[in-house]
Structure formats: structure tokens, C-alpha cells
């Protein structure tokens, strides 16, 4: 087990350009599942590659288990990584793919078979050991990549979007498996993804990145319920949080909190919403509306409802939000601010 820490970690690819990763400070906890979440180009993969030793940082320090590892090669860092493409060795059988790290780390030869079988057993791929990677399905390849990563029991586990090459159905089951797998082996894990569902579902904590800056680190609950700024607020949640600019502040509320007035006992704010369109998504409805009258006339809002079958397009209805569901952000800095009474009409 080990803790990964970065101090002011920075990566600039081309001199004079904006950094891909800027002054990132983070510290994992023992045995934690930490997710780097961000849109593409947010620097999450670059950050992971720097921790792995595949990318040289422009500035700052990386510590693994309390030691600075900046100058160490990937091999000396003793971490394991699963790549987005799995990067299996195409000319080696599954057995030899999994055994490769053991050979490379000069583990005693007598132990190879036992360790490979342990890893294969854990991931349910024991029957595939004689196959070549090209004879495997996407899900099987992913398991082989995982088995190759765990076989030498690394102190840190890095995963770069390991589910993105799987189809939607397989992804859900693979997510579940990865979670229970992590619970069983309990190794500190850093997981990169752009998929907020994966991040929310799997992470002990989520680190939201945007343009190489850390926007927030917190439990899934914290980042969703108390977003640190407007970027986090709109990046997490689908559909994203409604934002309205009011004086010095930006006020946000989630679509599931914008409800017909009869469902909100003590509304802090009410809007008259003209229904533009409703979408039926099976378990829920998404209602798109435009505010009719008042200070925010013409602004679009989104509501998420258990049922919207009674709403008629182009008709106006009263909607309300409770006080505790409102989020306040500073309009200048876009950072979260204290709740404040303000005029709404």
C-alpha cells in the first residue's frame, strides 16, 4: 500500500503554451479509490502519465509512499497501469502477458504459474490462458489487462479510462466488477475517466479537473451537492445545473429540484415556466421551459420530473425551488459563495 502525493505538479508541453497540468496538489488516502474526472483535454491523462513516469513533469514533485520519485523510471516506481487500449502484448499468449511483469521484476520462476493463476482466477479468465489477445473479446482483454496489472501486487494501481472501449451494457457490469475487485484487493487506485456516472459510482473521492487545474476534490456527494464552482456545478449532473445570474452572484439549482409548485412546500423562489418541450426517458421526464415574465423573462430552465405527462406544450405553469437546494457562486470568481438573500422579481 502506498500514498500518492503531488506538489505543485505542472506540465507544459510547448514552451509559451498554456500548461496541460497546472500546480496540481493532491494526496491519496491509503487504499483509496480516487477518480480524476474531467472533459477531454482537461489534463487528467497527462497527470496520470506523470505519476506513472511516462511523462516528465515541467515542475513540481511526485511522491509515492513518501519518497520523491520524479527522477525514477516507470520500472523503478513499482506501480501498475491499465491503459485505455489495454496495450496487451499481441505476440504473447494471455499467460505470458500476465507473467511478463513477474519476469521483468525478476520474481522467482517457480512462483510464476501460481501467481498468474491466482490473478487469472480472481478475474475469471483461467480458461483463456493459452489464447492470444486477438482471439479475445473487449471485455476479456480488459480482464487480461487487469490481471497483468495486479499479478505482482503493486502498491499503486493506475487506470486510464479502462471501460471506454466497452459497449454500454458491458460497461455497467465491468464497473460493478471493478468496484468489488477494488474492495477485495484494497490497493490505492487512481482512475481516470470523463464519464461522470463512473466517477460518481466508483470513486471514494472524485477530483474534478478543468484545463489542467484542480477544480474540486471531494466525495461524490460533496462534488455533486456542494460544487466548488460553476464548472463543477455544470459538469456534473445530467442535464446540468440551471444557472441564473443575479446581481453579484450566480445562483444555481439542479433540474431535479425545480419542481411544480404543488410539490414544493416552502418555495424560496417561484418561476412561471412556459413549457417548450418534454422528453420521456422511461424512468423520468425532462422538461424544457422558458421563464415567462419577471426579471428573468426568456431564460431557459430544465426540470427533471417523475412524470410530466400532464404538461401541455406552450402552456405556463408555476414552478418552485426550496431554499436549501439553491447554490450561490461569486459572479467574478465563479467560486462557491455563502447563501444570501436577494431580490428575485
Amino acid at each position, binding site marked *: 500500500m502506498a500514498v500518492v502525493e503531488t506538489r505543485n505538479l505542472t506540465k507544459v508541453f510547448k514552451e509559451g503554451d498554456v500548461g496541460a497540468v497546472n500546480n496540481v496538489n493532491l494526496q491519496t488516502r491509503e487504499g483509496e479509490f480516487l477518480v480524476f474526472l474531467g472533459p477531454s483535454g482537461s489534463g487528467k491523462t497527462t497527470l496520470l502519465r506523470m505519476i506513472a513516469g511516462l511523462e516528465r513533469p515541467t515542475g513540481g514533485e511526485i511522491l509515492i509512499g513518501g519518497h520523491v520519485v520524479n527522477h525514477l523510471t516507470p520500472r523503478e516506481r513499482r*506501480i501498475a497501469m491499465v491503459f*485505455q487500449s489495454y496495450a496487451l*502484448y499481441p*505476440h504473447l499468449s494471455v499467460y505470458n502477458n500476465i507473467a511478463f511483469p513477474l519476469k521483468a521484476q525478476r520474481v522467482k520462476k517457480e512462483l510464476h504459474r501460481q501467481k498468474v493463476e491466482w490473478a487469472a482466477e480472481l478475474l475469471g479468465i483461467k480458461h483463456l490462458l493459452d489464447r492470444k489477445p486477438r482471439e479475445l473479446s473487449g471485455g476479456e482483454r480488459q480482464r487480461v489487462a487487469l490481471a497483468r496489472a495486479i499479478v505482482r501486487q503493486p502498491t499503486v494501481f493506475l487506470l486510464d479510462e479502462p471501460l471506454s472501449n466497452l459497449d454500454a451494457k458491458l460497461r455497467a457490469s465491468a464497473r460493478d466488477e471493478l468496484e468489488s475487485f477494488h474492495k477485495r484487493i484494497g490497493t490505492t487506485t487512481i482512475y481516470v475517466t470523463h464519464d461522470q456516472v463512473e466517477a460518481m459510482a466508483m470513486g471514494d473521492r472524485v477530483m474534478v479537473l478543468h484545463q489542467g487545474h484542480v477544480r474540486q476534490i471531494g466525495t461524490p456527494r460533496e462534488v455533486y451537492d456542494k460544487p466548488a464552482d460553476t464548472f463543477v456545478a455544470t459538469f456534473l449532473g445530467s442535464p446540468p445545473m440551471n444557472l441564473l445570474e443575479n446581481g453579484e452572484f450566480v445562483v444555481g439549482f439542479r433540474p431535479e429540484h425545480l419542481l411544480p409548485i404543488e410539490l414544493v412546500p416552502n418555495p424560496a423562489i417561484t418561476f412561471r415556466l412556459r413549457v417548450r418541450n418534454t422528453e420521456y426517458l422511461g424512468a423520468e421526464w425532462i422538461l424544457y421551459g422558458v421563464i415567462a415574465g419577471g426579471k428573468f423573462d426568456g431564460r431557459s430552465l430544465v426540470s427533471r420530473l417523475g412524470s410530466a405527462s400532464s404538461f401541455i406544450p406552450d402552456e405556463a405553469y408555476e414552478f418552485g425551488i426550496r431554499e436549501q437546494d439553491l447554490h450561490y457562486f461569486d459572479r467574478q470568481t465563479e467560486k462557491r459563495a455563502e447563501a444570501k438573500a436577494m431580490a428575485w422579481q
Partner: protein
Amino acid sequence: MKANPPPATHALAEAAGRTPPPSAASPHVPWRRTPEGRAMLLGVSMFSPAVIYILALIGVPFVLAFVYAFSDVKVGSISYHWVGLENFRSILQSPSFRKALANSFIFTIVSQILVIVGSTILAFPLKDKFRGRGFVRFLILLPWVAPISLGAIGWKWILDSLYSVINWVLVAMHLFKPYSAPMWLGEPTLAMASVILVQTWRLLPFSTVIILAGLTAIPKEIPEAAEVDGAGFWRKLFQIDLPMMLPIINVAVLFGIIFTFTDMTVVYVLTAGGPYDSTQVLPSLAFFTGVLGGDLSQGAAISLFLVPILVAVTYFMLRMAHKSEVV
């Protein structure tokens, strides 16, 4: 034939049934004006230059070589006498031929080993981006685009007994005394080494380009995964990079073997097979015997000795190409 008439006639009838009956407006459209006829004519006219080229410049000489090899034809002969395997028996007894056969193998194998090792070493740094990469790649490719004979003549001067720049440098560095410097093309072993080195110099660019292409086709993540898995430089090279490059290296080797086994330019220009046949290879011996010596039948017999070897190499080449496609 008799066993299968029903399906054959059936197929014919079916084909006839599918063609629409000639319309009343155009009772007699010539076959070449119909869409099928036009497509056929276009196909034939596009294809025939290649067929004619191969037949005239490869097929005819190839057949002639067989015809000559079993005869007593000389330049200027007006008669043809079948002599069976007499020519083959006679060349097999000739010391020159045996020497040339052995030399051909030495020349090809040693130069190919040097080429593959050299081009693999070159390909690795050339794969990475650095300032001036384009220029370095251009320099390495230069020996390939220059005419072989010109390059070989340049080397002839570099290795000359009197004016050799190499010897000038060796003398200037006091490694040799003047007039006792090595005779690069005059001593049997040195001459063979020189011929092999020049052939290596000439084939290196081609092989480098092929291997470079193979190397850039390996996804960057695979060697990276090997690094993270704990592999050092040599393990990564011998267990990951080289095995993954193997199909493409095979292609480079087989091309190189064919180019070297059948080529006589370097030998002809540098040493003309000398001294005392010590650098003679089969193609040059065939040329000297058959064309310059006028003994067409013996020359043909010598050159036909290459055929079984080249057929085997070609077979492996095609198999490799097929295999690497499947991977």
C-alpha cells in the same frame, strides 16, 4: 467432361436466360458495344501492357535460359545441339563456379546481417521527433536514390590502392606507414569485406525505411506498458519491440536477400570478381562466362542455379506477407 454435363448446360441456360432478349429497335448490337463487351475490352487494354512487359522481358529470357542451358550454344552459333545436363556437370566441376557459389552465400548472408542490425539500430532514434529529423532521414535515404553504379564508382576511389582517402587518414593518424597501407580491393579477404560493406551501405536505407514503417505502426502504449511492467531496455527490445517488428523485419530481410543474391553491380564495379575470383558471385560469373566469354549455354546454366534458391525465398516472402496481414 462427361461426368458433369448437366450442371454445365444448366449454368449456360441460366446465363442465357438472364440476358435480356435483343430488343426490336436494335436487332444487331455488336458485342464490343454492349456494356459487358466494353468493360471487357477496357480491362484487356489496361491489363495487357503489364502482361506484355512481363512476357517479353522476364518470360522470354527465362525460357531462353532453360533452352540454352541444355545446349551447346555460343555467341554467334547458328545451330542448336541438345547436350542434356552436360553444362551443369561441367560448371559443377569448375573451381571458379564453386568459389562463386560459396561467395554468393557469404556476400548475401553477411551483408544482410549487417543491414538488419544496422537498420534496426537506425530506425529506433529516427522514430522519435527531434530537430533535424527530416534532414537525417534524407541523408540516410541518399545511397538508395543515387544510381548504384555511381555510388560504387565513388567507393572504388575511396578504396583505391593509391588514392584511397581511408588510407590517407590511416597514414595521417600514424596507424600505417605510407606504401604499406591496406590494399582494400587487392587482397582476397579485404576485397570481400569491402564488397560486403559497400553492399550494406547501399541496402541500409531501404531496410531502414521498411523497419521504420513497421516501428511506427506499433502503438506507443505497448512499449510504455512494458516499461510500467518493469521491463528494462534490453528486455523491452528483445521481448516486446523486436518480436512485434518481426513480420516487417522478415520482409526487409527477404527483399534484401533477393536484391543481394541477384545483383552484381557492386562486385562488377569494385573488383570485377577479383582478385583471383575471390569476390566472384554467381550473377557476375554468369555475366563474365555467358556474355563477355561468349559461352551462352554455360552462362545460362550458372544463372539457373539461382532459381531454386530464389523460388524458396519468394515462397517464404509471400507467406510472411500473408501472415503479417492476418496478425
